[in-house]
């Protein structure tokens, strides 16, 4: 990852070229339910394999490394919530199983989401990821 950032740095035009790093800020996405009264019920978190946790840590370490080496500097960082809205708990389970390799919707959370939706037909199910976006600018060219 450090090599990838360093390659990208060389491609950037001076003086305004930049790298934008967009990825989850937290390892575990949350399954939540928006209720008709405006409140939000936490249903559960997804199960995350060690692979995803290690990749998350490695990405953070790569950014830290290029900053420490004074190759890039972080000039701005922002977090936002990124939502996916399934029609049902089954759709959420199938989506995660199809799209994601190292993250799973466990049976308990899946069942609970279904039960909560049936108990409150006006509720809306979603998956929320906290996402970070940061700008990295070249410090020096070599």
């Amino acid at each position, binding site marked *: 990852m450090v090599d*990838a950032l360093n390659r*990208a740095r060389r*491609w950037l*035009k001076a003086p305004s070229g930049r790298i934008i790093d967009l990825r989850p800020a937290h390892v575990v996405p949350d399954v939540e339910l928006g209720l008709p009264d405006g409140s939000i019920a936490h249903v559960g978190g997804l199960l995350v394999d060690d692979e995803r946790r290690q990749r998350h840590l490695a990405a953070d370490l790569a950014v830290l490394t290029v900053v420490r080496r004074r190759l890039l500097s972080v000039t701005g960082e922002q977090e936002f919530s990124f939502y996916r809205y*399934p029609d049902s708990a089954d759709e959420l389970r199938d989506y995660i199983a199809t799209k994601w390799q190292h993250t799973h919707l466990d049976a308990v959370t899946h069942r609970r989401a279904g039960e909560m939706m049936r108990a409150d037909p006006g509720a809306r199910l979603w998956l929320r990821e906290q996402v970070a*976006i940061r700008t990295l600018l070249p410090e020096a060219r070599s």
Partner: protein
Amino acid sequence: MIIDPEEHEVDALLARLPAVDRCVVVEVGCGDGRLTRRYSRHVGTVLAVDPDQAALAAFRKDGIPGNVEVREMPIDRLALPDESVDAVLFSWAL
């Protein structure tokens, strides 16, 4: 599945691009083009790369925007001239 209808992601991205309407972007990890489609109409050109053949097939299936070039490769095989790009986006890819 409805994904990011609030467009928080693309808003945050566009706010960070320099000279956005003429911006030359390299997107690393474009996948099926979900995000690429959303921001590409606002920028100059996009070179979108990803090593995942199946994801790129899904991207191509729905049509590639005219200002987007797609290449199937990891970033370590991508050769570009120095100082030729306005922004490199690591799209959920770092």
